[in-house]
């Protein structure tokens, strides 16, 4: 049984003023196995963060779950009461490193107090014990607790803040950590260090990790499996190597081609044709067809089913029949 299983999840952002509901996730299904790092890749607006927040049950109005289930060890965590979820799951079993972690800290609180505050929210009031645990996780993230504890957030560099945010997510020793773009605002050298840290957390602590990113070129450095999202729908799921070496879905193919390597010739790097989808417009059929060079008539009217191609999930009509 997978550790986490998302089944047919639908999430909408309701905008009553405009009399519309934006569908952010449309029938998303994916599994996360215990002990793995799985990466969720997609462009802005593809639903990556919405998926993360849905798993954490941190979606706030106007976002609403419109159907589907999220099973954690077989328990549908969407059916639990908020109280029970917060007590037994949130941060205890599943925690999160939110997007733009540089800005999640309270500027008036010392780093130490962020740890105490987090522990207090989960009913742990023994300060000495919390600080001992906080020191452990800070040391694990290669920070010096004695120094960092008494600093204010503005006294830390971007990379250090990211490490503190990761340490905070590990405070209650969770089984699963969701990291939302943990390297987005960092330069490449710091990014490399954070990727190494994430791998180390996975290997040494055995923590399962969902790693969300818009940059498919860092995925092979970190994840064993990858889920490609586009416009709120899964396009392709499979082992990282297979997906990158031989992308099956035309979107994955275009995504891989759009990112230059240090040895790419200028001709082989191509932008994905057309414009990213407007979330306010409902696209009939496959969401990628307006930009797809393989688009057929059926793509414009019918949503592709989930096809199994060499052990991979691919949602594309090219693989039908």
């Amino acid at each position, binding site marked *: 049984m997978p550790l986490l299983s998302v089944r047919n999840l639908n999430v909408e952002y309701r905008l009553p003023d405009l009399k519309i509901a934006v569908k952010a996730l449309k029938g998303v299904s994916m599994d996360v196995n215990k002990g793995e790092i799985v990466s969720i890749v997609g*462009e*802005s*607006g593809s639903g990556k963060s919405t998926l993360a927040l849905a798993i954490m049950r941190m979606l706030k109005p106007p976002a609403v779950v419109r159907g589907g289930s999220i099973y954690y060890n077989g328990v549908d965590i969407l059916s639990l009461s908020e109280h029970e979820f917060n007590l037994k799951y949130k941060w205890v079993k599943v925690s999160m490193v939110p997007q733009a972690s540089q800005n999640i800290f309270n500027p008036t609180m010392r780093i130490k107090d962020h740890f105490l505050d987090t522990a207090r929210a989960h009913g742990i009031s023994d300060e000495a014990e919390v600080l001992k645990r906080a020191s452990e996780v800070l040391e694990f993230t290669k920070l010096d607790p004695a120094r960092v504890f008494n600093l204010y957030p503005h006294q830390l*560099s*971007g*990379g250090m803040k990211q490490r503190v945010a990761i340490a905070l997510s590990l405070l209650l020793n969770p089984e699963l950590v969701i990291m939302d773009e943990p390297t987005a*605002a*960092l*330069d*490449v*050298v*710091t*990014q*490399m260090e954070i990727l190494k840290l994430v791998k180390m957390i996975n290997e040494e602590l055995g923590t399962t990790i969902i790693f969300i990113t*818009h*940059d*498919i*070129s*860092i995925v*092979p*450095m970190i994840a064993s499996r990858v889920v490609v999202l586009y416009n709120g729908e899964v396009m392709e799921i499979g082992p990282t*190597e297979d997906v*990158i*070496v031989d992308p099956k879905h035309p979107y994955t193919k*275009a*995504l*891989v081609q*759009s*990112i*230059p*390597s*240090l*040895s*790419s*010739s*200028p001709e082989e*790097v*191509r*932008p*994905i044709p057309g414009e*990213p989808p407007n979330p306010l417009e409902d696209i009939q059929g496959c969401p990628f067809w307006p930009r797809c060079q393989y688009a057929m008539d059926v793509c414009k009217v019918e949503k592709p089913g989930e096809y199994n191609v060499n052990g991979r999930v691919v949602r594309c009509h090219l693989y039908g029949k």
Partner: protein
Amino acid sequence: MGSDEYLVELKDVCVYFTERVGLFRKSVIKALDHVNLGIRENDVIAVVGESGAGKTTMGRVILGLQKPTSGLALFRGKDIYSLRGREFEEFRRSVQWVPQDPYSSLDPSLTIGEQLMAPIRRWNPKVNAEARAEELLKLVGLVPPSFYMNKYPHQLSGGQRQRVAIARSLASNPRLIVADEPVTMIDSSLRIGFVNTFIELMRRSSLSLVFITHDLALARILLLKSGRGRIVILRNGRIVEEGDVNEIINNPKDEYTKVLINAAPDLKRWLKNREEGV
């Protein structure tokens, strides 16, 4: 003073910031340390380095926004910080800026058309501002322009906003654009589209570009596609390497350049290593 061979030239520029440490002690941060750089007409310079290397400070000196502690910043051979009146106007018109964050660089209370027409009227009162604004939107790939003219920034995506910021930087018909991490906030799959836009802009008019980034692979593609220019690697306020991009990437002399190259995510290198079983 300097020669006017260069559009903008930095000569032995130092920018030091003093920071108070505790009550009495001060420490000096050398944001730029004896930097020399010449930017010609139709030049392309990609400035690469990690956070804190001095990339933005260098951009600000070129833009006349940061006075060097010592050394000279010259515009057509004259000290930028001594320019007055007409001469300063000419400098300001000629050297423009595309900032990093398109979420904070546009005025939220103005429509896209208004943000573009204001600088057009400021610099060129005689032209039809509306027609020129639509032309600029077309140049940066926002078509049809009429669709964008009456929109507010919050109605556009991050990528579209950054295109507006580029269009705005063109309003004064500049000779040089300093683009400070213009694609850092943009999805990696969209970045190549921005490189193509800059290439197209340079192809259409005589325009120099200083492109500040920490994405080495993207800087390389920009230089190869434009068929000229060079890369400058900054570290701790110093230029540690400067020259032809392929030569530097294939044969880095400086240790730090090697670190940058190894840290750059690279799908092709990953594939190659995988085939060779590394």
